């Protein structure tokens, strides 16, 4: 079966203050459709960089990444942006919701970018907020929400355009234990509903729930 995401011998070198830092060194990885994969490792091991490459946020220095069989190297910036909009959902440690928009409007944002009609956007956003357990909070602005609630809005936003893949970078990093647990439950539910998930985490609880765990050290996969 063709993997939904595949990294082929990817390397990534960052230029930091005149120095070159090898963030990734020849990493190869396949993710199957519907799989729940966790990437773990110490800080600086290259796991977040790998996630950004898998999601087409930046390009590898060498090697290639394929999403649904399509090489990202062949896509220009406009097509990569379109791919992220339609097929990949992102959740980050910092929620980064637009502070002037309500929870519902934040969820509507990727749909607005897809030129979905206003009515349809509204209905879908309400559905997604209900799915993540925030049905009563759609009119609230981010400043009126707790950290856990903001992360749920961010997850709903990531799901807005029905992506095939959800990539999450330390999604529980800024949450307390109980709130983090609720997010983990939500991720489980998403995966059960068929979502392919790649989660970068320090959190052992999150890694334990994944079907497969990839461990990284010094820019390489160690297992």
């Amino acid at each position: 079966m063709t993997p939904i995401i595949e990294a082929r011998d990817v390397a990534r070198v960052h230029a930091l203050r005149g120095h070159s830092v090898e963030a990734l060194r020849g990493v190869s990885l396949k993710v199957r459709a519907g799989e729940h994969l966790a990437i773990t490792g110490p800080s600086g091991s290259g796991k977040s960089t790998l996630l950004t490459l898998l999601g087409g946020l930046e390009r590898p220095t060498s090697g290639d990444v394929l999403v649904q069989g399509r090489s990202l190297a062949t896509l220009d910036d406009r097509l990569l942006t379109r791919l992220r909009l339609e097929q990949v959902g992102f959740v980050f440690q910092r929620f980064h919701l637009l502070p002037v928009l309500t929870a519902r409007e934040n969820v509507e944002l990727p749909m607005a970018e897809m030129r979905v009609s206003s009515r349809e956007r509204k209905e879908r956003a309400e559905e997604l907020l209900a799915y993540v357990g925030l049905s009563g909070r759609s009119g609230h602005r981010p400043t009126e929400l707790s950290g856990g609630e903001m992360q749920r809005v961010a997850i709903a936003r990531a799901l807005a355009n029905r992506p095939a893949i959800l990539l999450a970078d330390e999604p529980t990093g800024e949450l307390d234990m109980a709130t983090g647990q609720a997010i983990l439950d939500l991720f489980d539910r998403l995966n059960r509903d068929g979502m392919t998930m790649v989660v970068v985490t320090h959190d052992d609880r999150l890694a334990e729930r994944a079907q497969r765990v990839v461990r990284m050290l010094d820019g390489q996969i160690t297992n």
Partner: protein
Amino acid sequence: MNWRWALRDLARHRLRTALSLAGIAVAAALLLDMMMLSGGLERSFEKLLLSRGYQLRVTPKGTLPFDTEATMGGASDLVARIRAEPGVAEAGAMLATSVHALAGAARRSLVAYGVDPTAQGFYVLETGTDLDPSHPDAILLGLPAAAIVGARIGDTVEIAGRLDPQVGVASGTRRMVVRGTARFLYDARDQPSVAVTLGTAQALAGRSARDRASVIMVRVGDDSAAASVAGHLRERIPEVGVSSIGEMVVQFRTRLSYFRQLSLILGLIALVVTVLLVGTLLAITVNEQIGVIATLRAIGVARRSVFLYVMQQGLALTVVGSAAGLVLGIITARWLDAILTSFPGLPASISFFVAEPGSLLRAAVVLLITGVIAGLPPSWRAMHAPVAATLRSDAL
């Protein structure tokens, strides 16, 4: 990403936005005022010169109207020759001279316009009856002169043409009947002017002013022929100077070129201030939201949408600030106009700031372009923010 969301972002920082809007409004007002000043003064002057429909002025050679006290001899012959020229519809001489109103021991100095009532372009009758060549002892008073003399229509006033400079004894005295009041077009504010017939003015001024005139006003039947008639008059009567309205406006422009330079410099300063204000505010907004912007790009929001989102904020600031500024500019222009037109020696009816739809439109377009230019660097920065690097540094 739409206009409403962009506006809400501005409304989130009320004080910052309000201060920026105030700054843009002041700069826009300054720009509008400078635009009105740069062209308005000329247009106002041209309008004033044409207000009575006389397109040409004949003056002593080498002078401009009201520029010197020089006069031309043989005025009646000159007027007759000018009237006989093809294309000339009307011509009338005027002698400007100082006269004195006598009231007991008091002497009040007045400016007298001696005119041909059938061909004059110096005053507009406001009340009473106009001068008539058959009534040489009639006089029209401007409002400041009426106030000084304390006379009304029907009153008799004693006017002296000359005063002995040593002892102040009046000579050439005439008793004149006030027939009406007039508004004198070229007068400075509060200038006490009167109008009498040309012959009376010449008599009051004494022997040396006999058949002399300061200026001859010429009306050309066809406006478009004014320049050619002027040229023709110069050839036919080379001993006098002939100025068309256009030439006088050019002279005026040359003399007041510093106003244009001043308005250009201040206008440019206003534009730079607007660019800096809008640019700074947007740069701060982009800096504050760089993490959000990177996230938006990460979730698939196109560069174009990010660019427009920031640009919309810049345009909203510019449009709202400029609209307030244009209103403020019109108000301040009136105030500044009142100050500048009170300068001695300037016709009170001239306007330095002329609010015309063209000036307003030009200012609005320039401000809009300024807003776009100011919004470009921060919008460019936002759309080109390196997504992964920004998210990495944001997570630290």
